[in-house]
């Protein structure tokens, strides 16, 4: 392998791409897109929590209906003077969402409540009614038991949990699990998208060389393995450039927008608490943004690069076997499936980063880049696991590179039709 040739290929790949309009547009638009998506996500979760529905109540106890109306005037209406049939009609005419009949037994025993409704409103409607009913019935029972106010207050108890980490050195540190869960997820996401994005770049580049018919001119000067490594390195350098720009921009922006964002966040969390969503209480963790350790960033870059080289050679092989970009779908399968699996496992790892599934799959080379980085961000991963996963990725890379080089060597010179898996198997054996 001649490094001069690899370097020439690398330089061409890098320079022509970095100057292209597509690269400049992506560099600007991708973060904007991320921010917009994130913002929309938050907006939606804040917005839709309030749904309106109207429930008719036929109350034979005479106490529950008034307290329901008191609890939520818009939601509950007392229809005790109407017959059940009339309420049925009202539901059918869509004047009310549904109705419920309450009797004495609901207070004295745990008799199941029955809601008759049109079927719209979803799980949120059912949950809200259930909790409303629990509240009024409990209140009525307490009233009847004539318990003191102190005991009544006990039922209002709310508990908050504040956690601190104890390190092996005996130091107690602020626990930022909530924050790092988000960081870990973001890192997993970014690597997931980056593998697809830059892998796709390489794949399209290979297909372009094939359809342009330049590849034979090039292979009369350069060995396929030199061309392949030069390409991977060129796009890798492009990836580093793009991430560099983003990181610098992020650091720059956050120094300006940091204070602004935290004031917005506090507004929002206040709003959320007002809406009675206790699980949102962890939001204030945002307020003092914990510092991301350098080691985490180093691991992120390492896992990103390892993931990139592991997958990019495979993307190149796919490109070489395809005849046009539209023909790649089927060939992509063996590569897409592990990435998608890793992506789904990440959702699990993000909740329980130390479970058996998380630990084992973070050691599987094809999953490591996404799953392991999420774990590293969230929990204390023993160094042997990190080291082992990196070692396994490097070893697997040697294998995928060998395999890809074999496919690539034959693929780039075979025109006229996309190869089948059978053809590819033949190329590998050749």
């Amino acid at each position, binding site marked *: 392998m001649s490094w001069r040739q690899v370097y020439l290929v690398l330089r061409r790949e890098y320079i*022509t791409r970095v100057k292209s309009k597509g690269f400049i547009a992506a560099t600007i638009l991708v973060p904007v897109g991320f921010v917009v998506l994130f913002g929309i996500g938050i907006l939606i979760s804040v917005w839709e929590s309030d749904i309106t529905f109207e429930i008719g109540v036929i109350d034979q106890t005479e106490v529950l209906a008034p307290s329901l109306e008191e609890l939520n005037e818009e939601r509950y209406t007392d229809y005790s003077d109407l017959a059940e049939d009339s309420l049925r009609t009202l539901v059918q005419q869509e004047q009310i969402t549904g109705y419920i009949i309450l009797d004495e037994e609901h207070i004295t025993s745990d008799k199941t409540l029955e809601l008759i409704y049109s079927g719209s409103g979803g799980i949120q409607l059912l949950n809200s009614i259930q909790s409303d009913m629990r509240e009024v019935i409990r209140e009525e029972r307490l009233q009847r038991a004539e318990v003191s106010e102190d005991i009544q207050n006990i039922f209002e108890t709310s508990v908050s949990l504040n956690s601190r980490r104890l390190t092996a050195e005996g130091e107690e540190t602020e626990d930022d699990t909530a924050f790092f869960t988000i960081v870990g997820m973001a890192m997993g996401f970014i690597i997931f998208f980056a593998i697809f994005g830059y892998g796709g770049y390489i794949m399209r580049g290979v297909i372009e060389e094939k359809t342009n*018919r330049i590849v034979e*001119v090039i292979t009369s000067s350069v060995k396929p393995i030199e061309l392949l490594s030069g390409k991977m390195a060129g796009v890798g350098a492009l990836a580093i450039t793009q991430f560099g720009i983003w990181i610098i921009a992020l650091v720059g922006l956050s120094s300006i927008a940091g204070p602004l964002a935290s004031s917005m966040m506090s507004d929002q969390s206040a709003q959320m608490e007002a809406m009675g969503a206790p699980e949102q209480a962890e939001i204030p963790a945002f307020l003092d943004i914990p510092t991301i350790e350098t080691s985490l960033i180093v691991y992120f870059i390492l896992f990103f690069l390892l993931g990139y080289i592991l997958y990019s050679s495979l993307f190149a092989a796919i490109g070489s076997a395809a005849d046009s970009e539209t023909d790649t779908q089927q060939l992509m399968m063996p590569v897409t499936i592990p990435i998608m699996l890793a992506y789904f496992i990440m959702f699990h790892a993000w909740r329980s980063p130390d479970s058996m599934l998380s630990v084992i799959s973070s050691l599987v080379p094809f999953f490591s880049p996404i799953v392991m980085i999420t774990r590293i961000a969230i929990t204390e991963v023993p160094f042997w696991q990190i080291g082992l996963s990196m070692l396994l990725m490097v070893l697997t890379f040697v294998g995928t590179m060998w395999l890809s080089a074999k496919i690539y060597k034959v693929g780039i*010179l075979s025109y006229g039709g996309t190869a089948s898996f059978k053809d590819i198997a033949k190329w590998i054996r050749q």
Partner: protein
Amino acid sequence: MATIEVENLSKTFGKTVAVDNVSFEAHRGRIFGLLGPNGAGKTTTIRMINYIIPQDSGKITIQGVRVSPKTQKMIGYMPEERGLYKKMKVGEQLMYLAQLKGLDASTAKKQIRYWLERFNASDWHSKVVGELSKGMSQKIQFISTIVHDPEIYIFDEPFSGLDPINSELLKEIIIELREKGKTILFSTHRMEQVEQMCDDICLFNNGKVVLTGNLRSIKKEFGKNTVLLEFQGDGTFLDELDDIRINNRSTNFAEIRILNGLNHQEILKKAMERAEIHKFQLVEPSLNEIFISTVGEDNIKNKEELQS
């Protein structure tokens, strides 16, 4: 010493034998034609000479050196499937390809300027290839093949897809290169091009060499046993002749190869009975005819192509 020496070369793809025990030599200052129908193994052989794919067995040497990345740089290769990076500028592209062939940047710059001027294309230097017309990009393609001034030139089906002006231009370049003492090897399935340009030939069929050597002496060997006949009138007498093979027949022309020593005067006599003869000439057989009589009519794949 031969510039390109191919000895007992073989290559198999799966169960198909693409190249089967092929040997030939190409020499300095001469044009070597590799010919045969499509699928005969020409491109595979050329790729092996260019060290693009490895041979299964046999030996290829370029100026006495076994094929390697080093010999690649001694060759200017224009493949049948050719193209350029559409989004790159002409100058950048030629620079890249020249550097891949081992030229340093300053020499490459000089060469590129020289050749762009030669082709009246100096002002294309900063144009993006995608914006060039087909003819223009064909010129850039030639330049990319010859820019590093190699000793050896290999053109795979060089004239296919070229417009007539560029065809003529390429022919001129090839002749000029021969005069400079370079070695030229090209492949084609168009026999008339070979007859016009080649000094030596190698005939391929089904992966095997069926005939190789100096074009003149090959023709001489076959003797003057072909009749060119131009006539006016009823041509059906041609169908009544035995022991002949007619190539290139049209309403008033026929190229007749005499087989089994039939007297050509017989043909003339019969022709005169039925038609008015404008021309009757005894010549050496055409390459097409030589090819057919060497491999036998039945063994030719894609026969129509040869006659086009």
